[in-house]
């Protein structure tokens, strides 16, 4: 065990020395890693926000509306509300009176609202708006609700919601594919960079082997060098991406259109998740890159 500790201390020292002595190459590697991670961050940012936008939009249609018959007593209405609330998958139920519904409609129509003034009597029914825990429960809830007395109609934007769901799913999938491809590509770029570093030090590795060094003894300092490069590359990428996102977010909030910001993932949340992703990837890429790219040269 004392042997191992010694090797590890030696590796750390050599790794730091190595990345400092090959400063130029280290800088090249770090900028490459940072660049690729930044690109990844940008794409992640785009995808996550499109996703967030869809989710929020979808949420607005994510309800079932139960129109009540016109001549129900208050007690009947309350009973219906309670029955609905007890159904599995129902998150909340709230009562929307016919007056309130007309009011909402007027507001929603804005400039055209005056058209509704021309109505002789309020044609809208009282209704319950049912919020679901998840879209998956929709069909089940609708079926159960339809068995209740006193309902005139069950309105449910099934087609619309399903379209939005389809689009959201597609965007999420496309996003995942793009991010997956990007991770692969960045692995590739970084592995190549480190491979070039290793090729440039091929002779050195050969010499180590001739002096009787084991593969792990040779590999360790390179891995630590790779880790150092990964950490520094990640740090730069995290800094730039965080700062950039905060800047864009603030810009949108203040200058462009405040309403968009509602659909965006807030800066702290985004920064926290992207920082973890970038750090894990950067370090992983650095270490794995070293190991992969050294394989060939250890067979001497």
């Amino acid at each position, binding site marked *: 065990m004392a042997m191992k500790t*010694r*090797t590890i201390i030696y590796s750390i020292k050599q790794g730091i020395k190595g990345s400092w002595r090959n400063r130029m190459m280290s800088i090249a590697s770090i900028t490459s890693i940072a660049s690729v991670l930044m690109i990844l961050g940008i794409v992640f940012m785009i995808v996550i926000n499109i996703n967030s936008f869809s989710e929020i939009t979808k949420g607005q249609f994510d309800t079932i509306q139960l129109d009540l018959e016109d001549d129900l007593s208050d007690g009947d209405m309350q009973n219906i509300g309670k029955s609905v609330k007890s159904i599995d998958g129902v998150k909340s139920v709230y009562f929307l009176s016919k007056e309130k519904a007309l009011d909402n409609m007027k507001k929603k129509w804005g400039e055209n609202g005056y058209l509704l003034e021309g109505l002789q009597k309020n044609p809208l029914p009282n209704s319950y708006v049912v919020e679901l825990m998840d879209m998956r429960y929709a069909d089940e809830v609708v079926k159960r609700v339809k068995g209740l007395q006193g309902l005139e109609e069950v309105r449910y934007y099934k087609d619309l919601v399903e379209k939005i769901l389809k689009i959201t799913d597609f965007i999420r999938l496309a996003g995942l594919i793009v991010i997956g491809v990007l991770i692969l590509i960045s692995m590739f770029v970084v592995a190549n960079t480190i491979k070039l570093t290793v090729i440039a030090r091929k002779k050195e590795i050969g010499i180590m082997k*001739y*002096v009787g060094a084991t593969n792990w*003894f040779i590999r360790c300092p390179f891995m630590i060098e790779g880790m150092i490069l990964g950490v520094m590359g990640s740090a730069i990428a995290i800094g730039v991406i965080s700062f950039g996102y905060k800047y864009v977010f603030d810009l949108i909030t203040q200058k462009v259109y405040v309403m968009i910001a509602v659909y965006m993932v807030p800066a702290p949340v985004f920064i926290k998740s992207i920082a973890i992703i970038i750090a894990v990837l950067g370090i992983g890429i650095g270490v794995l890159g070293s190991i992969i790219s050294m394989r060939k040269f250890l067979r001497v």
Partner: protein
Amino acid sequence: MIKFLNVTKQYQEDKMALSDMTVNIDRGEFVFLVGPSGSGKSTFIKLLLKEIDPTIGKIKIDGKDITRISQRKIPHLRRKMGVVFQDFRLLQDKTVYENVAFAMAVINTSPKEIRRQVPNVLALVGISDRANMFPHQLSGGEQQRVAIARAIVNNPSVLIADEPTGNLDPETAWETMKLLKQINRRGTTILMATHAKDIVDMMQQRVIAIENGKIVRDDQKGVYGYED
């Protein structure tokens, strides 16, 4: 301790670098390997180090057939041998001190022991004042001496040297030879490929002469034996 059994090495179709060589070197011997340029001396050494494998034949070190050992055992094989390469092979991004220290670190020597031993060896080969320089800042002869220091620092049981005096002036060359003889007296087997006629003639040791990949002469207390 070192046994070549019908070893043939063929790099390319048409020509054999070593052909059907059988030779036996005992523990503690001092052997010169001589022969014209391209006769196969370095090939002989590379085979010992398992840098290359023979096309045909067996090579035994300490009774073990090294053509059959696994990849993982190679480092341990090499630790038995100190090597001075014809082209030095120093680590370019390590100082003289670190190059020597590295060879010790590889076999897990304690830092304390390294700090004690490295300066001794550097003094022995006469380059103490170059300890903190990088190989490219050294003269040819100085690099060669660093290579020697690295080869002997771990007290190997075999010391292999390919042309270790090629870049040294006669005086330094003789000092190096005295050093090797001294190491040999402590029981280390020494195998040295060389073109230095004077040295071979003077040292009165076993001489194996190779020509075209074949042993043409193997004398105890031999001489270089090629006429100008």
